[in-house]
C-alpha cells in the first residue's frame, strides 16, 4: 500500500480513537446522572470508534515523504464525513423520538459549531449534552489538527492538512507564520476554554453548565444547552464573559500566537484585526442609535450593553440570543444579517467568508478602479504590508462569489419545502455561516421547525460546506476528485 494511503488510514484511525476518548467524559456524566440508555448508546459508539480505529491503525503508517493535495483533501473530507455519520447514529439512538434527518442535522451542527437543532434542548439527556459540547469543541479547532498534534509528520504534510481544515484564505495559509505555528493553535484554544470555564464558574454558574458553555462558546457554537441559546435572563457578568470569549473565538488565532511570542509588530500590522474591531464597534453604535431613535424613552446604557452583546454574538457567528431582538427596528436586523456573510476572522472558529477575504476584495475593487484610470501601470496588492500574488487575490474574490452562490442554491433547495422566502434565505445563511440561529425568525431560538427531512439534510450539508469552506465538499461531486493525478 502506498505511503500516502497508509497515512490517510492512520489519520482516520487516530480521529476515531480520539472521538472514542472524547466519549469518556459524557459516559461518565451519564453514569453520574443515572442515564442508563445514554450510557449504553455511547458505550456502543465508543467501542465502535475505538475498535474501528485500532483495526485501521494496523493498516496505517505515520511516515510519509510526499503526499498529493488530492490525498490531503480526501483525508479531511472522509474523516469529517465519517465522524459526522458516527455521531448521527449516537444522537439517533440516544435521543428518543427523533428521526434520522434530525440526528444528522444535530451531528452536523455539533461538529461544525452551529447553534441549530431540530428539537428542544430539553429532549437531550445531560450526558448527550456534554457529548454535543465536546463535539463543538473538537470541530471548532479541527479534529485533524488535534491528530496532527499527536502524531509526527513532516511540516509540509501537517501544514497542508491543517490548511484544508482550518478556515481562511489561501494567501494567508501560504505564509510562514501559519505554516510554522499551527501546532500552537490547540494550546491557545484550550487555554481560552479553561479561562472561560473558570470565569463562568466564578460568576456563580453551575460547574456542569459552565463546562458545557465554555466548550461550546470557545467554538463559536452557540449555547444550545441553555434554553436553546436564549440567554436573555442571564446576569450581565455572564453575558459579558460570553461576549468577550465569543469575540476572542472569532478573532484570528495567530494574533494570540504573536502575543505569546511577543511579536507585537505583527499585531500592529494586522489589518484584519483593525477591520474587525472597527466593524463591530460601528455596528454596536449604529444598532444602539437606531434602537434609541425608534424609542427614545429607553435607558441608553442598557441599550448599548444589550446591543454589544447581541452584535458580538451574531458577528462572531455564535448565534446565542442575549437580548430581545424582536423589538429591534428592521434596519438593525438587516445590519447584523448582512454582516453574517462576512463572519469572523481567518483561522478562527467562526464561519462566514471571513474579514481577510473581504479586505482583499475591497483592495481588488480599488485596484480595478485604479487600472481603469492607469491601464498601463502595474501595482501589487498587499495585505498586512505583504504582497499577494494575483492568482491568490482572484481566489479570495472567487470564494466570496462561490459563498454567495452556495447560499442562494441552499435557499433554492430549502424553498422546495415552501417554507417562505424569508425563512429559506435566512436559514440558508445561518447554516452556511455556521451561526445556526436565524435572526428575526419566528421561533426566537436556535430550534429549527417546519422543515422536512430533506430540508434538514440540506441544512446539514450547508453547515459542512460552511465549516470546510465549500470546496472540499463540492469536490465530491467533481469528476476530477475521483481521478488520480496521473490521469489528469
Amino acid at each position, binding site marked *: 500500500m502506498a505511503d500516502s494511503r497508509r497515512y490517510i488510514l492512520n489519520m482516520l484511525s487516530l480521529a476515531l480513537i480520539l472521538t472514542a476518548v472524547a466519549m469518556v467524559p459524557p459516559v461518565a456524566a451519564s453514569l453520574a446522572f443515572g442515564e442508563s440508555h445514554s450510557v449504553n448508546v455511547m458505550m456502543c459508539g465508543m467501542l465502535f470508534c475505538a475498535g474501528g480505529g485500532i483495526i485501521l491503525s494496523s493498516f496505517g503508517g505515520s511516515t510519509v515523504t510526499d503526499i498529493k493535495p488530492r490525498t490531503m483533501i480526501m483525508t479531511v473530507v472522509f474523516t469529517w464525513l465519517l465522524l459526522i455519520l458516527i455521531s448521527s447514529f449516537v444522537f439517533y439512538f440516544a435521543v428518543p423520538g427523533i428521526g434520522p434527518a434530525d440526528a444528522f442535522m444535530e451531528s452536523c451542527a455539533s461538529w461544525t459549531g452551529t447553534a441549530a437543532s431540530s428539537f428542544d434542548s430539553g429532549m437531550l439527556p445531560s450526558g448527550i449534552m456534554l457529548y454535543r459540547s465536546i463535539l463543538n469543541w473538537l470541530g471548532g479547532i479541527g479534529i485533524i489538527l488535534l491528530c496532527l498534534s499527536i502524531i509526527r509528520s513532516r511540516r509540509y504534510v501537517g501544514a497542508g492538512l491543517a490548511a484544508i481544515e482550518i478556515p481562511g484564505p489561501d494567501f494567508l495559509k501560504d505564509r510562514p507564520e501559519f505554516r510554522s505555528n499551527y501546532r500552537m493553535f490547540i494550546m491557545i484554544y484550550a487555554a481560552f476554554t479553561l479561562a472561560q470555564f473558570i470565569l463562568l464558574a466564578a460568576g456563580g454558574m453551575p460547574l456542569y453548565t459552565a463546562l458545557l458553555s465554555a466548550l461550546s462558546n470557545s467554538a463559536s457554537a452557540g449555547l444550545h444547552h441553555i434554553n436553546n441559546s436564549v440567554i436573555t435572563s442571564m446576569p450581565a457578568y455572564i453575558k459579558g464573559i460570553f461576549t468577550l470569549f465569543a469575540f476572542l473565538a472569532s478573532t484570528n488565532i495567530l494574533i494570540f500566537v504573536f502575543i505569546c511570542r511577543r511579536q507585537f509588530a505583527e499585531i500592529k500590522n494586522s489589518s484584519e484585526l483593525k477591520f474587525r474591531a472597527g466593524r463591530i464597534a460601528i455596528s454596536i453604535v449604529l444598532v444602539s442609535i437606531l434602537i434609541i431613535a425608534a424609542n427614545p424613552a429607553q435607558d441608553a446604557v442598557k441599550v448599548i450593553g444589550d446591543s454589544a452583546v447581541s452584535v458580538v454574538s451574531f458577528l462572531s457567528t455564535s448565534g446565542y440570543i442575549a437580548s430581545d431582538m424582536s423589538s429591534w427596528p428592521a434596519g438593525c436586523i438587516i445590519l447584523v444579517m448582512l454582516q453574517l456573510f462576512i463572519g469572523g476572522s481567518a483561522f478562527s472558529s467562526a464561519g462566514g467568508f471571513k474579514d481577510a477575504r473581504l479586505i482583499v476584495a475591497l483592495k481588488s475593487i480599488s*485596484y480595478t478602479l485604479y487600472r481603469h*484610470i492607469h491601464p498601463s501601470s502595474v501595482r501589487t496588492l498587499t495585505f498586512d504590508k505583504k504582497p499577494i500574488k494575483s492568482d491568490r487575490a*482572484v481566489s479570495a474574490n472567487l470564494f466570496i462569489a462561490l459563498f454567495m452562490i452556495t447560499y442562494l442554491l441552499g435557499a433554492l433547495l430549502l424553498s422546495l419545502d415552501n417554507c417562505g*422566502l424569508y425563512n429559506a434565505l435566512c436559514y440558508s445563511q445561518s447554516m452556511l455561516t455556521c451561526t445556526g440561529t436565524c435572526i428575526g425568525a419566528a421561533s426566537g431560538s436556535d430550534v429549527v421547525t417546519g422543515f422536512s427531512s430533506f430540508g434538514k439534510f440540506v441544512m446539514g450539508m450547508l453547515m459542512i460546506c460552511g465549516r470546510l469552506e465549500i470546496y472540499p465538499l463540492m469536490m465530491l461531486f467533481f469528476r476530477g476528485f475521483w481521478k488520480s*493525478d496521473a490521469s489528469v
Partner: protein
Amino acid sequence: MKRTISFYGVYLNLLGACFALPLLTALIYRESTSIRAFSFVMILCFALGFVIRKFLGSDINSLSLKLRDSYLLVASVWLVSSVIGSLPYILTDSIPGFIDAFFETASGFTTTGATIIDDVESLPRAVLMWRSLTQWLGGMGIIVLFVALLPRFGIKARNIAAAETPGPTVTKLSSSFTGTAQRLYIAYIILTLAEIVLLMLGGMNLYDAANHSLTTMATGGFSTYADSIAHFDSYYITWVITIFMVLAGTNFELFFVLIGGGIRKMFRNEEFRLYLSIVVISTALITISLITQGGYTDAFSALTDAAFQVTTIMSTTGFATTDFNLWPTLCLTIIILLMISGGSSSSTAGGVKVIRVLAIWKLIVREMKIKLHGRVVKDVSIDRHKLLPETLTYIVGFVSMYIITLLAATLLISLSGQGDLISNFTGALSCISNVGPGLEKVGPVCTYSFYNGFNTFVLAIVMIAGRLELVTLFVVFSKYFIHPDRV
C-alpha cells in the same frame, strides 16, 4: 473638465431632438400642458447646447479626451440626462417632487422600470411616451446612439462606448466603432418595428404597441397600464412580448452572426447556449412548481406565466402578467437568481451578465483542479478564446463589486426603518440589475412610492451605477480620479 463640457454642446442638441416624439404625441392627443412642457424642455436643451458651443467650441473631433475624461463624460451624461429628463414630469405635474421625478427618469434611462407612480393611467399620454422613450434611448446606450449618429466622433468612440456598453466585451462588427454602433442600432430599430407590427396584429392600438415595443426591446418594462401586460389578457400578446424579451436579452452581435453564418454558428456561442439553457430550465421548474404547489390547474396557463416571468426577469425587463409575489417559495428563489444573472453581454439587459456567470463557473472549476492536483493549471477560455489573467481579475473584481454594492445599498435603504429585509434586498437587487419589480412591498403589483426621498435617491444612483456596470460611476468618485497621479 472643459473637454467634457464642450461635448455637451452637441449632446444637448441630440437630447433636445428626442423630445420631438412626446411633443408630437402631445399634439396628436391635444394635451396642452404637455405641449408647453415638452416645448420648454426642448428649447432649453437647444439653448444650452447653443451657449456651450458658442463659448467652448463645437468641433468634438478636436477634443483630446483622456481615459478619465471618458469616464467623467459617460457618468455625467447619464446623471445630466436623468436630471433634464425629469423636467417634463415636474412641469406637467405628473410627479411634483424632483427626487421622485429623478428616480422615474433614471429608472427610464437605465431601463430599470421601477416606478413610484401608483396610478400610471392618470398621466398624460405624451408623458407616458417620454417615459417609454427614455428606456429605448437608454437600452442600447445614449452615447452609443450619439456615436452612431455622429461618425466624426472618430477614434475616441470605442473608449467612451466601452464605458457604457453592458457586458465585458465590445466586439468589432465593423472597421470603425461608429460602424458597429450603427449596426447595433439598425438591429435595435428593426426589432422594435417588428414588435410594433406583431403587437398591432394582436389587437393593440399603435400607441400601446409603440410604447410596449420601445420598453420591451430596451428591456425596460414600463407599461402604460398599472397592471402591465396583464391588462391585455391575451396569450398572443404575452407570447409575442416573451419572444422579444428573449431576443432583447441576447447578445445583439449574434444577430449578425446569424445573418452571416447561420443558426449553427450562433449556437456555437457558449454564452448564448447557457442563456437559453437557463431560460428553459427555469421555465420548466417554475411551471412544475406552479402546477404542484401554486394552485394552477391549466398547464398551458402555468407555462405561459412561467415563461413570461422568467424571460421578463432574466432579460431584466420587469413586465408582469401576474403577481408572482404570491407564487411558491421555489419560484421566488429562482426569480432572485435570475435577477442576479441578468441577460447576455452586449444586449440591453442588466445584471451580472451570463458571460460573467460562465466565466465564474469556469474559474471555480479551475480552482478545484488547482486545489486537487497542485500544479495542473488550465487556461480559462470562452468560445475558444483564452481569457487573460487581467480579464479574470476584472471579472472577479466586478462580481465582488456587485455583491458589496448590493449589500451596501440594502443596508443603506434599511437604516431608515422602511421596508423589510425581502423588500429592501430585492428592491436594491432589482435596481442594481435594472429589473424593475422586486418582491413583497416592491413586488410586481406595487411601486417604490413608499420609500422616502433619501432611499429613492439612493436607489436611483444604484440604478445608474448598475447600468454603467458599476466601474464607470465608481471610477469618477474614486480617489484615483480626483488625484490621478496618486498610486
